[in-house]
């Protein structure tokens, strides 16, 4: 019998400008740096600020054959409360297709789930980790543009998929390397971020500070308990 495949099928829903696709790319490189496997699929739609964006990442200890969007995720990441409250998403409701015993990470500073949502997620034995990633990004990096780093850090901190060195290498590759272009729009955004931070190294450090902070936060909580929603203070 083949070696047991450890596999996470991740669906990331957010709004244009939040770094959803960039997160997918960095997650992919992180897995690669850790000697593991990943594949990613951005959803091509109307890419513009505040419009729905979805990206999908598959991460595994084994080679990945399948392609296409993740229809039945084990992990869902919600980058903006409006994905839930305004239905700004290609997948409605946001938990469609979620597998039992799964993890949901939501960036929000208030409770976004309705009673009906909570019932469905309870029945699926899901765990929802809720924290204000925007606020954390502003507090640590001084800009909301590091929200995606907070989200990615929380995911990796909770799942322990890779270690901090793997992440740092991938983030370095993303921001200090010059060969990577996710899309024209993302490249333009990068140069805007770079101006804001003046120096790339400073940008890298701020990003890593956010990620390290989310690692600490993830370590401080136990998500194996019976509570559906775990709220983390920033």
């Amino acid at each position: 019998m083949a070696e047991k495949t450890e596999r996470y099928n991740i669906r990331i829903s957010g709004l244009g400008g939040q770094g959803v696709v960039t997160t997918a790319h960095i997650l992919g490189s992180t897995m690669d740096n850790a000697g593991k496997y990943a594949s990613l699929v951005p959803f091509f739609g109307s890419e513009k600020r505040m419009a729905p964006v979805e990206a999908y990442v598959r991460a595994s200890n084994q080679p990945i054959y399948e392609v296409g969007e993740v229809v039945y995720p084990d992990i869902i990441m919600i980058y903006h409360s409006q994905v839930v409250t305004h239905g700004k998403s290609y997948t409605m409701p946001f938990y469609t297709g979620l597998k039992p015993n799964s993890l949901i990470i939501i960036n929000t500073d208030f409770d976004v789930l309705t009673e009906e949502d909570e019932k469905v997620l309870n029945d699926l034995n899901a765990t929802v980790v809720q924290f204000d990633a925007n606020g954390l990004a502003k507090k640590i990096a001084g800009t909301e543009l590091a929200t995606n780093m907070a989200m990615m850090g929380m995911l990796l901190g909770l799942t322990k998929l890779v270690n901090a060195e793997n992440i740092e290498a991938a983030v370095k590759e993303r921001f200090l390397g010059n060969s990577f272009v996710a899309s024209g729009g993302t490249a333009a955004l990068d140069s805007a971020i770079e101006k804001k931070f003046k120096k790339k190294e400073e940008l890298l450090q701020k990003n890593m500070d956010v990620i390290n902070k989310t690692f600490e936060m993830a370590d401080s909580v136990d998500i194996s308990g019976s509570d559906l929603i775990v709220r983390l203070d920033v």
Partner: protein
Amino acid sequence: MSPNKRPMLEKKLVDMNYLLKEAPREQHFITGAQAMAEAVKRASVDMAIAYPITPQSEVMHLVGDVFAAGHIKEYYRAEEELGTMSAIAGASRAGVRLFTATSGPGLLRGLEAIVSWPGHRVPAVLGILTRVVNAPLSIQPDNIEMAYMMHCGAVMLHAENQQDTFDYTLAAFAIAEKVDVYIPVAVATEGFFVTHAKGYVDMMSEELAYTPFDPVAAPVPAMDNETPPARIQRDAPVQKSNFMSYLIHSVWQQEIWDSNSRAMKYIYEYLGGPIEVQNPEADVFVVASGCAAAQAREAWRYAQEDGLSVGLIKVRAIRPFPKNEIADAVKNAKALIVPEHNIIGWLSTEIKASIPNGGIVVDGPRVYGGMTLPVELIMKELYTALGLEYELNL
């Protein structure tokens, strides 16, 4: 850059067996479109012809770069797809190696010319990067267009991933030009899922290239355009009488399909055969081609982990269709699950018609319009065929 100033590269010329099986390879992480262009780069192509319309893939754009770098002698931008495919037929009369690629609506627009290639003995290689063709239109990778190609006599290969796209495209040039084949070879793969996504591809050095086309060895002599043969079309023998036209057409087309069958031995030689079989003793098989085979492979792996008696059959060749090989592989099977990226299920129809126990074929799961084919849908069919429950909330 002017083509005249463009330097043609000097390469080490090798035969296809060395190129595919022996030449050292290095791993690259590239898209399916790049993989096809990289194969063309190593194939000593004399001429590429294309009409770069949307929806295309990046293939013919990348082949243009390959031309500019001096790997290809000529690149002709045609008026539209019918013009492209007609120009391929015309250019082949000069005795040269030809490549083009198209997608979806472009393939259908060029089809009138393409279906005449086998009868005209045009040994060109055609890349098909599948896209939706029927309304409402989308640019996603539904592969129903392959059904329209299946009845013209061309050899058709269907690539699972970026590596297959590279290997099959190279092999296609060798298969097409065999004296006992000498008909076009189409290499199809799914647009977007393969063409726009990156995967690992092991490639040999680009200093190597396949032995150039030899018009003297070709079974159809190249036309000498300095002294063109007189009255080649106007008084063609098929126009002498109705009876002659029936007779010549029938023997000619029988010979085309015989040529198609004779390609099978070269599919064995270069690609290891028209099918891949995993777990041959299994009770239930997933049978799939192209990108659906990648989804099937994932389902097969999960089934192995769950300890189920499940096998995988990947179909590499759609024409010639491996009737005997599939019939033999599934003779003791209880059910065949055939996942497809089109609404009509052309692969499942072919399989049913090819095997004596056609009743074991389970139609689907199928997705269309270029939708993702979730592995979970295949798993559900596998569990159901084995009489087990599979929990899946749709």
